[in-house]
């Protein structure tokens, strides 16, 4: 499964881009797709918060969403942490 993660904003405003491929269990993959399909709830104005752009591509299907600090689902945060911990 291909992914593109772009994190910008933040106090320092140093954008970070992570592109690559990752293997996930089918249950994890399903949960990730389902979570990305849900429109994030609107947050109040967060100042200096990160903005997380997440896109995944699997078998021609592409899905993406944008989150902030308060509406980033734990499933997506865990996925981002997994990608970062792999040093991608």
């Amino acid at each position, binding site marked *: 499964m291909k992914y593109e993660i772009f994190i*910008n*904003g*933040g*106090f*320092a*405003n*140093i*954008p970070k881009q992570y592109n690559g491929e990752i293997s996930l269990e089918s249950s994890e993959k399903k949960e990730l797709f389902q979570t990305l399909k849900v429109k994030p*709830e*609107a*947050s*109040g*104005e*967060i*100042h*200096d*918060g*990160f*903005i997380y752009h997440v896109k995944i591509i699997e078998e021609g299907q592409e899905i993406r969403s944008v989150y902030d*600090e*308060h509406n*980033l689902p*734990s499933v997506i*945060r865990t996925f981002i*942490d997994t990608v970062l911990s792999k040093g991608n």
Partner: protein
Amino acid sequence: MCDKHHCLIIPPHILEELAKLGNTSCKKTLNDTHRILQKRNGILNNLLIREVVEGDGDRFVYDCQNRNQQRVEMVRQEGGEATDDESVNKAYVTSGFVRDYFKNTFGLNSIDDNGLDIISNVHYGKDYNNAFWDGDEMTYGDGDGKEFKDFASAIDVVAHELAHGITQFLANLEYQSQSGALNEHFSDVFGTIIKQKYLNQDISEADWLIGDTVVTEEFPGVAIRSMKAPGTANDFDSQPDHMDNYYSGNADNQGVHINSGIPNKAFYLSCLEIGIDDCAMIWFETLKALWRTADFNDMLDVILRVTEGLQNEGKVCDGALQAVENSFSTVGLSKVVA
């Protein structure tokens, strides 16, 4: 012309026009209406996880225990003993210093001038390279140790975040494009002023850097931003110091941390001419007179009007108006002559 009852039934775009003409009642209503709506949404969203408590400007420091969750454990509150955790103690001391600066200098009673509790969350997330104000409270990461370290320990970072709270209550500048860059600008201005006060520096000793103590030795730069020389603090620093290099892209909420370099440089130049204390008063009074959608030209109009008033009242030095006008002109912002 505009009492509270009139303001409540006047559409926002008319309130905004009246605010631009200096009507403070309309400006306040405009700011309050939006903030109440935001707050109501926030309260509804967070009803089950967060209490809304009225306070006395007391400090509360929470340890997030490296989880991505605020208010995990309250570890120090107003008047409480120091803990073994330096991040906790620093957040407590610095937030108190910022609160006291605004109280002693401008008579402001905490963030909202109504004794709002000052809540700091430290140790947020794992290796979290950031600090933010979320509309109610401040949150600080420990940094990853590779690029950044302990955001809660830096007086300028704490003052910057707390100033976002003050801006929210005084002008509620929208966090995008030029109004957002002004929002960032005011946080950097008071971050800088308070850092110099905290370190007992005068302007000739100051480094005019923001975030110099949160970057590591390995970080490719000396700080996050520079008021003196925007765009030079690190290898990623793209702040312009003149309208000729204005950023017009969409990233960073249309450049809120980027274009703030332009008024930041004007502030620095003004300080060199008339000193930081007169500038502090001018910028604070200007913030009070601004409104949600104010842009750079509105800022210039208001700051010149405010400075002239303060100068006429003898509250700032003679020559302040000329100095501020020159400083903004140097960064490419000049009064349009009709």
